[in-house]
């Protein structure tokens, strides 16, 4: 198709234009599996074990940002939700809501990214949907993905498993995604700060030998690490003490957050995970994570305390303060 072509309302009308769009853009990329022949529903083989099912919608603005776009983000988002539930992601659905007038080339780039990301995550796009809405009724392109995964045996996860003395580990720098999208949206910085958008399923797999020592896993997306940690201690007998000195932040994210007055603990990552594990296993987990390309900056950032219900930060100068839940929506439309 032509470079200058744009998506028309008719591409969602169910007629010939729709057929062309599906054939040339969707099936060309995803038609090699259960999507072949375009059945109404994907027929999937049976799974031996428990199933994890998750869905997420993506409205990130701008749709293209340093380090990724709405396509790979939509794959990583659902894959990561499944992975941190202690499962191996297998299949995805992909639903697109397109604003009329979207350049076809943009759609093609996004779909290419979906395919590449899916391959990298070992998942297949097996079903989907495309709708086109009038100009102004959505902003370019919205994407929904839902996914199915197979539970990995051995994990017994949940905030109730967390015990005093356990360690809080993260797989890399926090907040790069939120700050990179913010920078792209506001035209700040030079594009040097990249989103961390990436899958974490390999990091989860790396934990399976330590499954008995792992209490909790999460990918700190909206609300950042602060929201994730507060959720764990909310109403619980335990609290969390973080050490500011050990928090991994990139220089770019730090500079931008300082300028805009953000606390990076409130800012989303889209390719990081945190886990809480026993003190005994912590060092081995970090070592294992660091041996993977997506975990080179893995580190321990704090520990579980008896300070019931509170997340406390020990600052660089040795003082202590609360880490609160972000109030309201700090950064709208970052995923």
């Amino acid at each position: 198709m032509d470079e200058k072509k744009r998506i028309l309302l008719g591409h969602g009308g169910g007629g010939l234009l729709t057929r062309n769009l599906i054939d040339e853009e969707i099936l060309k990329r995803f038609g090699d599996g259960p999507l072949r022949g375009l059945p109404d529903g994907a027929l999937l083989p049976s799974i031996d074990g428990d199933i994890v099912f998750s869905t997420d919608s993506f409205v990130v603005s701008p749709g293209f940002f340093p380090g990724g776009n709405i396509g790979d983000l939509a794959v990583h988002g659902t894959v990561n939700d499944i992975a941190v539930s202690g499962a191996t992601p297998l299949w995805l659905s992909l639903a697109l809501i397109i604003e009329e007038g979207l350049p076809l080339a943009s759609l093609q780039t996004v779909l290419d990214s979906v395919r590449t990301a899916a391959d990298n995550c070992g998942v297949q796009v097996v079903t989907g949907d495309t709708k086109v809405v009038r100009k102004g009724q959505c902003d370019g392109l919205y994407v929904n993905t839902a996914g199915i995964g197979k539970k990995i045996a051995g994990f017994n996860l949940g905030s109730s498993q967390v015990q005093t003395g356990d360690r809080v580990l993260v797989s890399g720098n926090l907040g790069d995604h939120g700050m990179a999208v913010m920078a792209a949206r506001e035209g700040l910085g030079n594009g040097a700060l990249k989103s961390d958008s990436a899958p974490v399923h390999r990091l989860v797999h790396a934990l399976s030998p330590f499954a008995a020592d792992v209490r909790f896993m999460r990918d700190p997306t909206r609300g950042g690490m602060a929201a994730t940690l507060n959720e764990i201690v909310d109403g619980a007998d335990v609290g969390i003490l973080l050490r500011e000195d050990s928090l991994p932040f990139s220089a770019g994210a730090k500079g931008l957050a300082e300028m805009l007055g953000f606390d990076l603990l409130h800012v989303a990552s889209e390719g990081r995970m945190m886990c809480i594990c026993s003190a005994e296993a912590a060092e081995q987990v970090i070592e294992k994570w660091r041996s993977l390309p997506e975990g080179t900056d893995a580190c321990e950032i704090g520990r579980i305390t008896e300070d019931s219900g509170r997340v406390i930060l020990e600052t660089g100068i040795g003082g202590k303060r609360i880490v609160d839940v972000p109030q309201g929506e700090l950064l709208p439309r970052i995923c």
Partner: protein
Amino acid sequence: MKYIDGYRQGDAGKFLGKRIVENAALLADKHEPIYIMEVCGSHTMAISRFGIRDLLPPNVKLLSGPGCPVCVTDAGYIDAALSLARKDVIIATFGDMVRVPGSKKSLADVRSEGADVRICYSPAQAITLAQENPEREVVFMAIGFETTMAPVTTLIPSAEACGLTNLSLLTAFKLVPPALNALIADAEVKVDAFICPAHVSAIIGAEAYRPYVEERGVPCVVCGFEPLDILYGIDNIVSQFLNGECALVNQYSRVVTDAGNATAQKLFETFLTPVDAGWRGIGVIPMSGMGIREQYEKYDAAKRFGVSTDGGSPDPGCMCGDVLKGKIIPSDCPMFGDACTPQNPVGPCMVSSEGSCAAYFKYER
């Protein structure tokens, strides 16, 4: 970032913290606990954010002062803005003001009812707004201390230069020195020393505090906003008490000079004139504000539209006034954290990003 990191160095901070504790222990035998007021809201936020209060011994107390411009803005001022907003005027304002409750409502409330309230990140945006809406009146909410007063005042010459006839300022400018005078004179307020504002001092100059030191015997240290700046300031004050000294110290000399910013001072002199000003919860302090000079009164929204910014009746249960005078700490207010939270603020101290109640809620609950 390297520049900032230098003023956040952990080891240096711990060293200063330890020295404060040691000196305060020596001081404990010969002096009552000392009360240090950080005048400025940005210092309050930094103290909470970096956990500085947590490092201090029981006989060194920090009190928040009245230096949060949003917090000291009278309910009557908000009421005046609301009445203009209802008259189809475009209200241009810094974001922090939108949720501050007046006697009954906030700008956010009237905006949801259809009023035209625009958030500006810089005063210059008000010029653009006025140019883009020649048929409508644009009123800029001109609040702030000396620091903000400078860029906001430039709106007058800018409007003159652009020939704008539809832009005016609803002023509630405040001055720091008269507020400090009032606090020192208030027998109920216990202040032994001041951590003086950083940016305000860059405008008025460190020497502005000389009278408090020499005539009132109150040590003053001008500090930057980074944790080491503040710790240095506290350390300096504690050792002044230990050595029986009383001095004016400019720790923030990388930004603040003795005489301040002559250009800004000239700007004030040209366009503004001192006026009595009402401080939320504190009352009227004589000559503690700045209004627009008569010859530029066409830019004075209060005169132009005949509205009064005085008085108003804020929620009687809100203790912002006592918080701003350092008489209580935010958590002493019965509404703190229950009836009053950042999501449902009762008083401005819970709204503003520099407000003491917001700082305590966020970092020190």
